[in-house]
Every structure is written in structure tokens, then in C-alpha cells.
């Protein structure tokens, strides 16, 4: 059946059998490479997207459930090719290595800073608890979110 979504601000549509996961729909029907699949069990956060503004594991949602929804990925965080301050901070603080967890991690960080612009380290770590990173040991990621909070605050000033 047809499924239409607003993907990173663009109207997109594709076909989905009822059992097709949203993650597979985004990746294989719409060709998104900013949605990664690592466990399909809701256990790692690599497939996280924003569905109508809410952080959502796209491997735990059927594509048909997202019909008519707005989906944002890490690719949509850039503006005219310019990295978002959170993305810049991840680069500056070496908050990524292999990059597989990164899109989900960026979106998790974004939802944190949207609601809590000056988080403590403990709040950062707690908020990211649904996103597994196997490379960094999280030191660089936490430093990046700290730095992103500073950059975002600066931008708002």
C-alpha cells in the first residue's frame, strides 16, 4: 500500500506491505542512508528518527503507521550544506568514529537540547542511554553535547 511522508521537509512516497518496518521503508524504498539498522530490537538507537518531532526508533514502527507523518533525520539537520552546531560539536570533540550510531545520537542530542538547553553531564548521559556507541566510550559524545549546548546558547544570543 502507498505510504506518504514528509522526509526532511520533502514530500516522499513509496510502497509498503503492511509488515514493512519504517526503518526498512526509509532505507530501501526512499533510499535514506541517514537511518541505520543495527539490532531491529529497539535496543541500540541507531535507527532513531524524529517522527512528528518525537524521537522514535524506526525499527519498532511499521511504515504504514507513519503514513502522513513528518520524519526528520540527521541529514536534514544541515542548512545549505552547513553542519548544525550539534554536528559541528561532534566533529570538534571527536564524538564519532565509525559513524554508525551517529545519526541517531545526533537526533537524541537534539531532543535533549531542545528541552534542556543547559544539561548536566548526568542528564546528558541519561538522555543518551537508548543510543549505543561501540567506538567512543561516550567520552567524546558527552563532550560534544556539552560543547553543542554552548554553541546553541551562543547562537541564540
Amino acid at each position: 500500500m502507498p505510504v506518504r511522508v514528509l522526509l526532511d521537509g520533502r514530500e516522499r512516497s513509496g510502497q509498503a506491505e503492511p509488515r514493512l518496518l519504517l526503518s526498512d521503508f526509509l532505507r530501501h524504498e526512499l533510499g535514506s542512508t541517514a537511518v541505520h539498522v543495527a539490532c531491529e530490537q529497539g535496543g541500540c538507537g541507531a535507527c532513531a528518527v524524529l517522527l512528528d518531532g518525537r524521537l522514535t526508533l524506526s525499527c519498532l514502527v511499521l511504515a504504514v503507521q507513519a503514513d502522513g507523518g513528518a520524519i526528520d533525520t540527521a541529514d536534514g539537520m544541515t542548512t545549505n550544506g552547513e553542519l548544525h552546531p550539534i554536528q559541528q560539536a561532534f566533529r570538534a570533540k571527536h564524538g564519532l568514529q565509525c559513524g554508525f550510531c551517529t545519526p541517531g545520537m545526533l537526533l537524541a542530542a537534539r531532543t535533549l537540547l531542545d528541552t534542556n538547553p543547559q544539561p548536566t553531564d548526568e542528564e546528558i548521559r541519561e538522555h543518551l542511554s537508548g543510543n549505543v556507541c561501540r567506538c567512543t566510550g561516550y567520552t567524546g559524545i558527552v563532550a560534544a553535547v556539552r560543547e553543542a549546548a554552548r554553541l546553541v546558547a551562543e547562537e541564540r544570543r
Partner: protein
Amino acid sequence: MSRPFRYVGRSLERVEDPQLLRGRCRYLDDVRLPGMMHVAFVRSVYGHARLLRVDADATQDLPGVALVVTGADLGDAPELVTGSSRPEAGQWSRPLLARDRVRYVGEPLAAVVASSRYTAEDACELVEVDYDPLPAVVDAERALEPESVLLHEQHGSNDFAHIAFESGDVEGAFDSAAHVFTKRFHFGRTHAAPLEGRGGIADWSDELVVWSSTQMPFLVRSMLAGLYGLPETRVRVLVPTVGGGFGLKVHLYVEEAVLPFLSRLAGAPVKWAEDRYEHLAASGHSKEVICELELATAEEGRFLAMRGRLVGDGGAHQGHPWTSLIDPLCAAAMLPGIYDLDAVRYEVHAAATNKCPTTAYRGVGWTSGHAVREALIDDAARELGIDPLELRLRNCLPDGEPVVSATGCRYDGGSYAASIRRARELVGYDELRERQRRLREEGRYLGVGFSPFVEQGGWAAEIAADQGFAGSGYLDAVSVAVEPDGSVTLATGLQSNGQGHETTLAQLAADGLGVRPGNVRVVQGDTATTAYSTGSWGSRTAIVAGGAVLRATDDLRQKLLRIAAHELEASEADLQIEDGVISVSGSPDRALSVADVAAAAYSGRAPSDVDPALTATRSYDPPATYSNACIACVVEVDVETGCVGVERLVAVEDCGRVINPLLVDGQVSGAVAQGVGAVLYEGLPYADGGQFLAGSLGEFLYPTAPELPDVEVEHLETPSPVTEGGFKGMGEGGLIGAPAAVVNAVADALAPFGVRIDRTPLRPCDVLALIDAARAPAAS
């Protein structure tokens, strides 16, 4: 060779990040080819069974299924034959799909090719398999007992290899010892578990083109060419962005090896991208070694000798191509660690068990051997009433000078004592002991553990011999070209899987040539366009590339200077290159850019005695080099729940000359976190019948951000006197050293209970069991 470094040593931001941050990179499962079909495997549900019948008839009516291949359908398809430069390891062959027997849960016994992965999995459900269950053996020591069921009857034994080694007067040392300390330690199974699992695409029409998520494109090419009897020129291996490897992707797995066969049969490109169950149950497990270690000391605690028996749990098949020896033999070879010993004896076995085959994971057996030694030293310190750091400092090798260990490892100088002292300062050792004493009075149990170690680096012929694999050799080359516009291409078969080679190799080339790193483009992941290398594993890339890049850029630099001297009518000896400008010393107005010189070469203006081809391919086979570090861990153990909270992780690290400190810190932090995970969270249990009990992320627990503190990294710098540039390897160290630090911290916290730690993992249930066991004798 000494040279000024301008970009090496700087924390440059990574070239690869902008694409990764947008999610624009293509990993294996992002690669799609026209007409591509998808593979899923039918996998054994038994740990050990005879296969009586595999019947795919019911799949025939399922739309979208192209073919089903069973072990019997493989016919005379080739088998993987695994051996080692150690003759003791023999030659063990394995069909690409199980034929008449399955030996571990998850072993592939049939492959389905279908229009989508969904359909392929549907078809797997329809394949009927009749099993005749056999007794399973899941304990490595039991597997070696004569009455054990045999996994590979034709070999007559479950011992993949038995190796014995002795150096020095071991008996004499033990006879004259004032004390002998012993420890039995079972280091548990671990899993590299990169976030991106294994996967491959094979397209075999005219030539064989393979996309692989691997750390070693050329070895995959060589192995597939050998397996299928093709010239290497007819096999091309492409590697897209790799989502983590950590050693798991330095193997050729049967699932990957069968893909070309399936492609040829299906007449289409075929893709297999594994799911998390396949990854956890059936890719590669690591590091499980049961070790009995004895330490002889003199009265005042001076170490004299060690004796060890190490039994690796190899799982059902030897990991291809490195064999099951990479855990127990590496553990044994590094038994002396940083310590000055007179004599060492070890005996190594690698046992076949009805469990997932074991493969490499960051630090291979160095992790388990190091853990048992350092845990034993802490036991000895407690019994001798000597502070554990003092005992280590009394026995460690001298800082700075090259020295050969009791097992023959050629250490090239380090900061063994200095790293211990610095780690002690950083954790505030004396205050910590005082705080520990106060908290114990409140019924709270704080512990601190230290773990100083040496780490082999730059796996190549010489260090392989150090580690027990004499006779192994490796060729690693890079190709550097100055293009017509003066930009630089560096092409290599070394393969980043997240470490940032596009950045660090560019830093090396920039300094080698005298250009800016931004002008250097690193090309990897394509055997058709890069120079042969055995790949990125064994903490080797910085060293191997360091030598090969500096050699190749030296050649090119000399050529550029000769052409520039001709153009400028100056003497080569008076020329310098900096940031892409070649100038005459003392006359900065007499200058040319590298682009000008390249233009001269490409347009036929080079002097007649210079070959104008601005390309150089050079290799490097480095001598043995060893970095060192000391990791410290502070924990608090909740003795009611068994939960271990990690308060601090400190790493004082010495990898010689550092190419990019930001990236080294990232490697250390990540590896240390994996060490914490291996000890406190991740377990890979099997039931006695061979059932695998950790098939999802509900059972296999990665550490996440709240479980960890920031890893605090500090650098010491003892450049190698033997490698080009003074680089040492450091990719694995955190995971070699951190588990021992965590084990020792937990043991220190639980010392009031008399707990002796004899195993990992130390999940809450394990910690409570250890406390109960320690209390039991007192109660009885």
C-alpha cells in the same frame, strides 16, 4: 630517520566527519545493485547434532524465492582450510554450509536467495530440518578430556593445537622461591559486536566483484581467489564505509565465502547483511581462556618465574584464517607483561567446543592473559602485605631502554614505572585509600584497581615471531601520487573501520612531502585501485603506514626537489618544501609551488635524468614495537545488589610519537569502555546442552552512557627507537588493560569479604555469587 613534523602530532579534525554527520556515507547495506537478490541462512537450532534431512520443497511455492542451497547442494564447492605457521595447529577444513553435522547454535546449514530479505527469511522458516541431537560440550577443559564427545572425529581429539614453551630455569626458580602464588581464572567470552554487523555482496558474472564490510580488502581478495581458483586479477574487493570492526572483521566467514557461489548459481548479484541475532550467535566470539597461573617470588616479593596453563575455548571451528591460537597463544606469549622475570613456562591448548567459533577482538588473548596475571599480582600483594603498586614498581622493567622479555618479546623501551606513578597521582591514591577506609565503616565498598601493561604494535613478521607465530610474513604498501595540479593521492589497502585513516594518513603524507593535509586525499577500500596491504588490525596501521607513507613521500619529495632545482636553476641541497611551496633557503622570492613543479613534470619539462612519473609505492615491514600504559579504575560495589558502579577510569598511555592526539584519546576511551563492558555487562552464556542464551540485546548488554564516567587520558611519549617516525601501535591497549583494572578494583572493594575473583564477567549475579562463596566457608 629523524624529520621535522608539522602536522603529525596535531589534533586535526577528521576529514571523514562531515559526510558521516549527515548520514551520507554508504555502509554495506546501503549498496544496491541492479537486479540484486538477498540471502538469508537457515541456522542450526542445536549445539551439536547430526543432520538427517534438510528439505526445501515447501519453499517452492513461495513467490520471490530464487533458490535454496543446502550443504549437500554444494557438491564439490571448495571448503575453508584453516592452518597456521605453527605446525601444531594442523589443517582444519570446513564446508561453506554444514553438510552432515552441525556443531554450534547458529551454524548455517542452508542458504536462501530471494527477492528481498523479508522473503528470504520467510523461506528459511519453510525449510524442514531433521536433527539427531548429539551430546554437546561447552566447557573447554571438559572438551579435552578423553571421554568427551568429539566435534571433528577425523582429528581424533578436540584439541585444535597444543603448544609448550619454556625459557630459563623454571624448576630451579620455583624450588628456590620463598612464595608461590597460584590462581585459576576463567576469562569469559566476549563479543566485539560492532554496531554494523557482518555483510557482503557478491556479483560473479565475468569477473567476481565483492563488496565486503572488512578490515582487510586484499586478504579477502586473496582468500576468495584461492578458494574459487581465480586469478587475483579477476577478483575485485570493494569496501564501503565500515561501521566498526574491532577485529571481528579480519576474518573470512563461511557466510561471506559462500556468496560468490550463490551469485553464480542465481545469475545475479546477491547481498547478505546479517541481523543482530546472527551477529551475536554466529559471527565470532572471543577471548575465552581458562588460565592456571603460578608466580614464584623471593621473600621480599621479587618475581622469579611464572608457570601457566592456558586453555582457549575455540568454539566449533577455527576462526579463518588466524586459527584459534590467537587467544591462548598470545595470552601466553605476553605473560611476563612489564615485569622482570628469570624464567617462564607455558602450555597452551585451543579446545573445540559446541559454541560459536572464536575470532579476533581488539587485544585478542593479551586481554585474558593480562587479566589473570594482574589479578594474581593483586592477590600476591594482599598475601604479602605489600601495596599492589609498590609490588609492581619493585618488579617492573626499567623505563626507557629496549629490553627482551622472558618470553623473548623485543620491547623497544617504554615508561612502565612512570605510567604507574602518574596513574597513582591522577587517581589521588592516598586520599582514595583514606576514603575507602571511611566508607567501609559505613558499609560501603570502594575499590581501586591498576593495570599496567605493554601492548604489541604493528603486527608484522618480527612481532608475530615474538608472539609465537614465527614464519608469518606480511606485505603492506601505500601508493602516493602527486597529481598534475599538485594535489596528492594516497592509495592503500589499509582499511579504516572508524579510526580516521583519511585524516591520519593525510597528516603523515603532508609532513612527508611538505604540503598541507587538506591537499592529500586518501583512497582506500578498492583492490583495483590501491596498493596491496594485509589490512588494518593488530594496532598496525599507524606504524605500517607511518613507514610506508614516509618512505614513499621521501621518494617523491626528492623527485620534486630535483625538478624544482632544474626550474629554479638552484641546487637541490638549498631547497626546502613547506606547505606546498618549494623555495631556495635564504631567498624566499625564488620559489615554486608543488603545483608548478607537478605541472612541469606532467608537461615534459622535467630534466632528462629524472623520470617524471610522480608516483611512488613503498612498503614497510616494521621491527617489533611495544607501547605501554597504565589503566586505573575506581568502583563502588553495592554488596546487596551486586551492582558495580564505575566512578573513574584513568589511562596513562605511551604510544611513542602521537600522530593525532584527539584520535588517540578516542581510541583509548572506546577501548577502555569495551573493557568495562566485557567485565561488568556483556556475557555470552551457553546452557549445558549447547543452547546459546544471549541472542538479543536484551541479554547481551552493551555499556551505555550512564554506566560509564569520562575516560581520562593522559599521554607519555617514549618514541620507538626502531620504527620509522617513532610510532608505536595503540588501537587495542584499552581493551587489553581495562578488564584487569576493573577486576582488580572489584576485588579491592570486596577484599573485606575475602573475595578472590576467578572469572569474568562480573555481572550483579556473579558478584553476589562471589560474595556468597567467600562467606560460605566461614559459615560452615
